[in-house]
């Protein structure tokens, strides 16, 4: 639990205020930088808890016929693990990075609506607490139920009153409803800030790609999250008012829930993934010492992903749909690999001929590049309907989406932590510990998730709490579980690094990476007002122009 409280100094050390004053400061703050760090710190705490839950799942599955966990506990573990990782780790990290960086990158003093921003954070935090409180609170007066056990997409009719007694499903519903409102608040803020508060000269096509992608992600949330909210309201109506939306006995449709959930659920994958792309698009150019290749193609590809991702949701439902529907969603799903491919080639072209510096942020992004490629390839495999019919609800699918979210997104987030930690704290992260973290996590990730594809191909269904010996799954599951040990060791190194470097880290200075975007023009950590004067911008790399007056970018625009 070391990472549960990475004590990033959230207040400025004036005359070392008492702990109560500092806590009070956190509760009442509306500063985008403090809120951003609070988002990230809370998300990392949830990452540790939900990660430990995944470790328990892998411990149970390490050997056949294991009775370490009973089936009910196992169901709760994978439900809460999945829900927490998506809504209380992925989303807040996205919101946290966006909050911290968007105003700094566009030369603004704060977000457009600071109080709305604080509201969003607290909604997220209490949503997350609500989910975990279900372990204690869900039995309630009826004495039935514990944490939710319906899977992270909570298919009807499992969530009906008859099949889910007590309040476990209600906790799941309410925690998502609450945190969804928080996410919407923060996404409205990002749009209003990025369009309405850019510093003079920063036209849209001079915005850093990070800001562009956060804008696209926020716009996607406008379309993606309300369907989830609506579906949750319908589920609450069903459960508390006796409504019939998903009650098949009164003619309701269980498949309708699947549609509503995945209309949210698939854009959500890109809502989580594009911020990863956003970090990579800042890090890769700086460590290749070249401007981003194909800036406008990158913007276009991101927007195209946003549009296409709204029309692919039913590829999660190939086994419940007609051939016509399946064909449409197969084609749209495959089409989305076009803009994604454009991005990968742009990153590669940025690397090509560059003077690459193999610093920690860059190592994470290089790992991301090829891991995300593999994740994309298994994605195309699953987009083919007949292949998907064979493998749906198997461990192949589990391996695929963990490859996307860990191999893709999480590695970018690691890169972002190494890249921006000096800006947020004024100290560098320790390089040796960092290398240990990246190496251990890299090994663990590949042991676990490369191997996990195979039992899926051999027919192992997901969500089973144990399996018989003699199916050829034993050794593969054991290797998968062993990988977890490396991942835990890696995360422990990261947590130790984050905490110890706060005081002992090498002083970073304002611009340790010789970077080009505006956040590096102010002090590390930035003062509360961010910039003394509002900076002016003449190209997409304002600090390059400043450092190289003999050959500024704006000459070529």
């Amino acid at each position, binding site marked *: 639990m070391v990472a549960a409280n990475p004590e990033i100094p959230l207040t400025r050390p004036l005359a070392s205020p008492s702990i109560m004053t500092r806590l009070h400061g956190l509760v009442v703050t509306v500063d985008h930088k403090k809120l951003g760090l609070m988002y990230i710190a809370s998300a990392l705490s949830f990452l540790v808890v939900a990660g430990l839950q995944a470790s328990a799942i892998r411990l149970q599955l390490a050997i056949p016929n294991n009775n370490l966990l009973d089936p009910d506990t196992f169901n709760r573990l994978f439900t809460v693990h999945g829900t927490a990782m998506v809504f209380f780790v992925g989303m807040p990290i996205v919101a946290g990075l966006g909050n911290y960086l968007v105003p700094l990158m566009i030369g603004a003093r704060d977000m*457009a609506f600071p109080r709305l921003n604080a509201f969003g954070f607290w909604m997220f935090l209490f949503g997350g607490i609500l989910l975990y409180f279900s372990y204690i609170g869900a039995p309630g007066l009826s004495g039935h139920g514990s944490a939710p056990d319906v899977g992270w997409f909570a298919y009807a009719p499992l969530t009906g009153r008859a099949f889910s007694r007590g309040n476990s499903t209600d906790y799941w519903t309410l925690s998502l409803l609450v945190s969804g409102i928080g996410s919407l608040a923060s996404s409205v803020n990002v749009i209003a800030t990025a369009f309405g508060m850019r510093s003079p000269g920063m036209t849209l096509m001079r915005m850093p790609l990070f800001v562009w992608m956060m804008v696209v992600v926020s716009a996607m949330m406008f379309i993606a999250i309300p369907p989830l909210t*609506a579906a949750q309201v319908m589920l609450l*109506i069903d459960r508390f008012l006796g*409504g019939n939306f998903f009650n098949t006995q009164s003619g*309701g449709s269980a498949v309708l829930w699947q549609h509503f959930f995945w209309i949210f659920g698939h854009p959500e994958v890109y809502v989580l993934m594009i911020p990863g792309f956003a970090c990579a698009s800042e890090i890769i150019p700086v460590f290749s010492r070249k401007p981003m290749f194909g800036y406008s193609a990158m913007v276009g590809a991101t927007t195209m992903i946003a549009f296409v991702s709204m029309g692919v949701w039913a590829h999660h439902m190939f086994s419940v749909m007609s051939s016509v529907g399946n064909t449409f969603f197969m084609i749209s799903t495959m089409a989305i690999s076009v803009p994604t491919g454009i991005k990968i080639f742009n990153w590669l072209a940025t690397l090509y001929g560059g003077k690459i510096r193999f610093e920690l942020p860059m190592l994470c992004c290089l790992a991301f590049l090829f891991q995300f490629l593999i994740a994309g390839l298994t994605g195309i495999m699953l987009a083919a309907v007949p292949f998907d019919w064979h493998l749906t609800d198997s461990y192949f699918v589990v391996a695929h989406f963990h490859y996307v979210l860990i191999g893709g997104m999480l590695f970018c987030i690691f890169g972002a932590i190494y890249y921006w930690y000096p800006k947020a704290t004024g100290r560098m992260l320790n390089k040796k510990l960092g290398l240990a973290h990246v190496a251990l996590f890299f090994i663990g990730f590949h042991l676990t998730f490369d191997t996990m594809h195979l039992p899926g191909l051999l027919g192992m269904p997901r969500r089973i709490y144990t399996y018989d010996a003699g199916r050829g799954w034993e050794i593969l599951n054991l290797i998968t579980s062993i990988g977890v040990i490396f991942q835990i060791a890696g995360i422990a190194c990261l947590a130790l690094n984050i905490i110890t470097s706060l005081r002992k880290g090498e002083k970073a200075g304002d611009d340790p990476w010789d970077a080009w975007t505006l956040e590096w023009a102010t002090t590390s950590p930035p003062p509360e007002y961010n910039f*003394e004067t509002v900076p002016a911008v003449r190209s997409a790399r304002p600090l390059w122009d400043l450092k190289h007056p003999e050959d500024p970018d704006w000459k070529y625009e």
Partner: protein
Amino acid sequence: MITADRLSLPSTPAEWTLPSSRKLAIASLIVIETAMFTIFVVAYVFYIGKSLVGPYPSEVLDTPILSTICLLASSLTIMMAERAFKRESVGGFRLWWSTTILLAAIFLGITAAEWKRLIVGHHLTISTNLFGTTFYSLVGLHASHVIVGLTLLTLVLVFSLKNSIRRADGERIEMLSWYWHFVDAVWVVVFTVVYVVGR
């Protein structure tokens, strides 16, 4: 440290205008609300004619002509109020603004009477059948937006009567009218789906 003012290079644009954050936020809110209403409308349309037991919409629903006229008219009156605000005619603003509130209240009153008739007279509740579930959810979601709007409208009237609205609040008033127009536009969809197509 690279001081930020060194970035102020000569050829920065003299005129630098940006869209208003407030307008962006309300436009975003309207997109979000549209997405949410869409899902409820889809559910309504999907379940038309799928109720296993009565009462069915053709038996119990009357077309709410009067309330529809009131709500649509309130879009015009709020526009008149805005115009009066721009002319700085305080009396005109208060008159048109109060008319808007009155029309919204009439709409809600008629909806309440309709619900009472359905619940007491026809024993149609939210749990009776799919029609009840989808009808009360969709119409209720819209009505709850009218209630929010009515509350905000009343608040503005109170501020106006206390003379605490300044010229600078014009954009706030405009944003409220955007929201109000949106609520009206949603009613057009709800009306079409529930009272025309669904019957």
